[in-house]
C-alpha cells in the first residue's frame, strides 16, 4: 500500500514536471495556460509552506524555552519578536508605518551589519586558508585576490600613478578574460548537473517528496 502510494506521488510529480518543462519549448495557447496555472498553484503552495516553516520555527524555539536549553533567552527573544511583528502586521496592516519601521529600523540594519561582517569573515577565512591548504591553487587564489583588490579601489597614495593604472589593467584582464572564461566553464558544469538532477526527478529515480 505504501509503495503504491509512493508511485502515485511519483506519477503526479512527473506529470506536473513535464507540464512545466514543455512550456519552455512548445508555445501553444492551451499548454501555456496549463503551465501558468500549475506555476500559480506552486506559488500558493510555497506561501502555505512558509507558514508551515514559521510553525516549525516556533515549535523548535518553544521546545528550547520549555526545556531551558542553552541559549533559551535568545529563543524567547525570537518568539517574542515574531509574535509582536505578526500582531502589529495583523492589526495595522502590512503597509502601515509601524510595520514598515520594523523593517526599516530593525531588520534592514541587522542584515546590513551581517553583510558588513562578511568582509571580516572573508579576511579571516583567507588567513585560515593559508594554514589549512598550502598548495598551488591557494597561492594563485591569494595572488589573484590581491591583484583584484589593488586594481579595484583607490589607494591612500599614488592613485594617479602608473602602478595603480597597471593594477587596474591587470584586474580587468583577470576578471574579463580568465575569470569570465572559467566562470562560463563552471556554469556549463552546473547547468549539466542541474539538468541531471531534474531528469532524475522526472524519471522518478529521485523522490525528494518522500515515499
Amino acid at each position, binding site marked *: 500500500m505504501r509503495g503504491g502510494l509512493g508511485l502515485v506521488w511519483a506519477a503526479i510529480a512527473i506529470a506536473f514536471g513535464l507540464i512545466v518543462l514543455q512550456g*519552455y*519549448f*512548445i*508555445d501553444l495557447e492551451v499548454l501555456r495556460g496549463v503551465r501558468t496555472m500549475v506555476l500559480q498553484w*506552486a506559488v500558493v*503552495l*510555497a506561501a*502555505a*509552506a*512558509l*507558514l*508551515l*516553516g*514559521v510553525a*516549525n*520555527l516556533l*515549535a*523548535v524555539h518553544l*521546545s528550547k524555552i520549555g526545556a531551558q*536549553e*542553552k*541559549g533559551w533567552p*535568545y529563543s524567547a527573544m525570537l518568539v517574542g519578536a515574531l509574535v509582536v511583528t505578526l500582531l502589529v502586521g495583523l492589526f495595522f496592516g502590512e503597509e502601515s508605518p509601524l510595520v514598515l519601521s520594523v523593517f526599516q529600523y530593525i*531588520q534592514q540594519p*541587522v*542584515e546590513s551589519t*551581517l*553583510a558588513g561582517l*562578511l568582509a571580516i*569573515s*572573508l579576511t579571516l*577565512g*583567507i588567513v*585560515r*586558508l593559508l594554514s*589549512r591548504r598550502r598548495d598551488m591553487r591557494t597561492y594563485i*587564489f591569494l595572488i589573484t585576490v590581491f591583484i583584484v583588490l589593488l586594481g579595484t579601489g583607490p589607494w591612500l597614495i599614488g592613485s594617479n600613478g602608473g602602478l595603480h593604472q597597471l593594477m587596474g589593467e591587470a584586474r580587468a584582464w583577470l576578471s574579463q578574460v580568465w575569470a569570465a572564461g572559467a566562470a562560463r*566553464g*563552471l*556554469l*556549463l*558544469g*552546473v547547468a*549539466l*548537473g*542541474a*539538468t*541531471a*538532477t*531534474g*531528469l*532524475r526527478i522526472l*524519471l522518478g*529515480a*529521485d*523522490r*525528494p*517528496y*518522500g*515515499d
Partner: protein
Amino acid sequence: MGLRDLLGIGILIGFTVFLIVRTGTERRWPTTLRALPAFDELRQAIERAVEAGQRVHLSLGTGTLIGSDSGPALAGLTALSQAAELTLESDRPVVVSSGDGAVAAASQDALRGTLGRLGASDRFRWTRARMLGPTPFSYVATLPGMLDSERVSVHVLLGHFGSEGALAADMGARQHSFVLAGTDAVPTQALFYATADQPLIGEEAFAAGAYLGAGGMHRASLRVQDLLRLVLMIVIVVGTLLSTLGVGL
C-alpha cells in the same frame, strides 16, 4: 517552435536516453568515480561524529524550491537521505536546515521517507528539519545558535547560497566543525573556497548523491554529464573556428 527549441528538446531527449541506457549498463560496466577528497573526508568526519555523539548538520541553503535556484537544494535532499542513513546508529542523528518554507517541508518529507525506508520511523522528529529564517541573512543570523546548541561537528552546506554562504561556512569553522560547502552560484563558490574546509567547485555539488552511495542512476548521470560536456566542448571549438574563418551559421 524555433531551431533553438528543437535543439533544446533534442539535448534533453538525448540526455534522458543516455541516462537510461547508462543506468541499465551500470551493473555490468560500473562508472569509476574520480577521487574527490571532499567526499572522502566527509564520510570520515561523519563516522567520527557518530562515534563521538556529535551532530551532522546539513544546510539546504537560502534558495526556493520553485525557482531556478532549486537544483542544488534538490541535490542536497539526496545527500540528506544518505546522511540520515549514515547517522542512523548515532544518538544524535542528522539535523537539516533551510531558509525557505517549501524546502523545509520537502526536507521533512525526505527525512521521514528515508527513516521509514530504513525501518526507523520512530526516530523521526519534524523539528530535525527546520526553517531557520525566511531571508538569507536572517537564516545565517540564527545559524550559530543552532550549531552551538546541537553540538554540530560536521557542517555541510549543499544548496543555493548568495554572499551569506560565506558567513554560514565561517560560522561552522568558528565552531571547529568540518565544513563542506557546495552551491550553484559561481561567485559563492569562490567565497566557499576561502571559508570552507572542503569547497565543491562547479558541478561537484550535484555529484554528492553519487559519491555518498545514492545508487546507479546517480553514478550513471555523472558519466552522461561528462559525455555531454565533451560534445559541448567540441561544438564550442568548432563554432569558434567557423566564426574565426568567417563562416556564419
